[in-house]
């Protein structure tokens, strides 16, 4: 259980599901600090959250780029200094590209694998140490249903997300007893700018509906959350499919 109002650091609050989640947190009075790549975007989002907040507090920002490891500690230092202590760290940032594009552009593929797996895990490790040092907290990280099964359309993206989900599960097993709660969010298709232009499958989710579920999961300390919930069932079936079927499916 998270104490309320909580002190929350969000990496990736300027867009999509991160934006929706941060808004819900601001509207119930949580205190926020935003990390992201572009200072100007961060400031605009901070103003937005401050205007929506029910309590008067300054939403601080610091540059933190998942492509640049050296930005991690400095950004988290600033967040801790501004908030006093951390209760929740949320990571929604990540990269996306279609399988076709990644196959055409090996450099992009390498960068995506590095950012979505190695660097995200590295950031989580820094956050984990800080949370454990103060006796625990919640680490909520956005992975994806793409990591559930090797699939034709998300071979590389899915592999990175599978690695991330594996890391988060391990973390949960190892540290929950010490007070560190890990929430692994597995969104299915959600209509954000990340998925703009892709064909929309059935059960496409809305960022705010995802945010509502994620917030409930953070409050209850639920370790895995699918959003929209229908994807839990979809992925349950997909996991059961034998490989010869998966080879034939264009999914």
């Amino acid at each position, binding site marked *: 259980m998270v104490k309320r109002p909580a002190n929350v650091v969000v990496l990736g609050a300027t867009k*999509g599901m991160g934006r929706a989640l941060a808004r819900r947190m601001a509207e119930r009075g949580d205190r926020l600090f935003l990390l992201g790549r572009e200072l100007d*975007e961060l400031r605009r*989002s901070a103003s*937005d959250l401050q*205007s929506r907040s029910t309590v008067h507090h300054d939403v601080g920002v610091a540059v933190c780029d998942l492509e640049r490891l050296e930005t991690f500690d400095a950004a988290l230092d600033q967040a801790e200094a501004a908030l006093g202590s951390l209760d929740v760290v949320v990571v929604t940032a990540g990269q996306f590209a279609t399988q*076709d594009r990644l196959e055409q552009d090996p450099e992009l593929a390498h960068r995506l694998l590095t950012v979505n797996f190695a660097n995200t895990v590295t950031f989580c490790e820094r956050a984990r140490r800080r949370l454990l040092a103060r006796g625990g907290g919640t680490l909520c990280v956005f992975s994806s249903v793409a990591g559930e099964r090797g699939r034709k359309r998300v071979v590389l993206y899915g592999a990175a997300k599978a690695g991330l989900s594996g890391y988060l599960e391990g973390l949960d097993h190892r540290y929950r007893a010490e007070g560190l709660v890990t929430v692994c969010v597995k969104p299915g298709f959600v209509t954000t700018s990340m998925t*703009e*232009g892709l*064909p929309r499958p059935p059960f496409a989710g809305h960022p705010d509906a995802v945010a509502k579920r994620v917030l409930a999961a953070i409050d209850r300390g639920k370790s895995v959350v699918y959003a929209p919930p229908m994807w839990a069932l979809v992925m349950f079936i997909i996991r059961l499919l034998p490989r010869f079927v998966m080879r034939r499916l264009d999914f």
Partner: protein
Amino acid sequence: MSTAQRQEFESVLSGWGRVPVVQGAELRSEDLARLTEDLPLTRGLGRAYGDAALPAPSDRLVAGTTLADRILSFDPETAVLTAEAGLSLDELCRVFLPRGFFTPVSPGTRFVTLGGMVACDVHGKNHHREGTLGSHVLSLTIRTGTGDVVRCSAKEHDDLFRATIGGMGLTGAILDVTLRLVRVPSTSILEECERVHDIDQSLDALKSASARWPMTAGWIDCLASGRHLGRGVVFRGRWAEPHEVPPSPRSQPRNLTVPFDIPGWVLTEPAVRVFNALIYWRYRARHPSAIVHPYTFLYPLDAVAHWTRLYGSRGFTQYQCVLPDSSGREAVARFLTVLTRRGGASFLTVIKDCGAEGIGLLSFPRPGISIAVDLPMRRHNTQSLVDALNEVVIAEGGRVYLAKDALTRPEHFRAMEPRLDAFLAVRRKWDPERRIRSAQSVRLFGW
């Protein structure tokens, strides 16, 4: 072909009236400034009825603003709000109404964006007092056709400012909007309804209501003919004082939905006649004065999701014009006579007395009576009906509302709009290469 390209190729866009339908797609991003660098038009929530937010025939993509919806600043002392253009009025109400602030001017739906409200220079039930939205806008940030991002206000680049207010997005992409909200004493509205029996009574009731009430509008049954022509209901309202609001005020109206397209044969003239008569008689039983949720009073149609499906897959156009005071109330009767004689069966005919003209170069309202009617699409005669109505409007010295328009001919629009050349001159100045355009601008102005 990549997936994105394929989808763009196959997809189509239309306005709220569902006609016309054009090939095209909306591209959305949180970063509206970057998105609009090389797109010819922005589109908000797509509530313009006709082709105002559709790409021109030579274009495919439009920039969707709805993800650019951040509040950039709000000062409760001055009530001045700055927000990105994609912020919806629905969200603005949700955030600010509980704090006692509201939009100074509200159109008939809350599913519009701030950028769209500025581009259409929307008016509402309080037009006779507060004017259009434009008179409450303090400044705008615009990406012009040259690619520059320009801040404008009544003091700074006022030509661009005035052309953008009511300029249908044709002066560039509106990125941020600064406007002054109004303080409201409660979150409920005190509403009164009065049944009226003919057009003279309707106009009289509207006029006397507007002399005393901040918000007024009338609904008329345009199928009642002869001495009943123009019978209907006049609504008047004001924000309730805190002591008038019961301890548990009325909640937001429940959401209904029209789950599928209603076949065209349902919506025949007899059906509309019955519908209109039912509404008319219903108001006899209704309590003349009530405390209601603001959404009930301001956005009755928002309670019915997909209500445009009532008009079937063929869609409909809405026709809204303003007939100036100078041409007298007979003008309204003449207009309604032409409408009914040509079989323009309209579910909802709404009248509103307009106040002073706004500062926007193409702003729609002017002192007079505004009339809005729904015209279901019929194979041939919808265009000729619109032509006939436009000829009446031209003869009376009135004009039509571009946010609703899909069928007006360029020569008709020019005849209604002496301000057009001034508007086009500003457009030319800020967009010499003619990069900003919509299906509507190409239809009406050639670019």
